[in-house]
């Protein structure tokens, strides 16, 4: 198993555009979480999905949305991009949704907004 995979690796967009980031969890994992990591900061929680339902949401504007598919893969969508959305976006998967389940992180997608 390659672990959690994310695509694309890098992405450059301009302000006002829309972006879709993708994540494939480890086989058998049902929960996917998304984090934003701005340079010099720790990852900040955006969303958690479990069995296609949103289980948690961080303090992010409605421009951020996500969904999980029947195969447990997930997409993160960001509309009306701002310069401040430039960051590394991390996806993490876990077997179940509770806190004692270890989260396995992907390599991230580096988004640059110009």
């Amino acid at each position, binding site marked *: 198993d390659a672990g959690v995979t994310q695509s694309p690796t890098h992405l450059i967009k301009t302000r006002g555009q829309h972006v879709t980031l993708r994540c494939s969890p480890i086989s058998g994992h049902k929960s996917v979480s998304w984090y934003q990591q701005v340079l010099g900061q720790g990852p900040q929680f955006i969303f958690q999905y479990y069995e296609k339902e949103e289980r948690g949401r961080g303090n992010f504007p409605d421009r951020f949305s996500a969904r999980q598919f029947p195969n447990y893969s997930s997409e993160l969508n960001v509309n009306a991009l701002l310069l401040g959305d430039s960051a590394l976006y991390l996806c993490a998967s876990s077997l179940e949704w509770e*806190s004692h389940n270890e989260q396995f992180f992907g390599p991230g997608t580096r988004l640059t907004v110009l």
Partner: protein
Amino acid sequence: AQRVTQPEKLLSVFKGAPVELKCNYSYSGSPELFWYVQYSRQRLQLLLRHISRESIKGFTADLNKGETSFHLKKPFAQEEDSAMYYCALSWTGANNLFFGTGTRLTVIP
């Protein structure tokens, strides 16, 4: 509201010296604390969590509820310990993690 504080952005120690990475948290309920590590050009990965009370790669961390701390310690630092370390908090019934800003540890040969 929950908060995780790692007061040191950078920490350098000599090989063989003891190392302590500090983590303080703020949370009104019963927290679950974790240490995650990111080695150069690798993914963020779990190092240890307080509920398992185990030692990983010689590192230990004790949850001190009185001082609201979860400091990471190792008696003898090794060069391969050089990495970025993040303290993170969650709680029963959730799986989202709240991370501190991280401490970059450099072990000097």
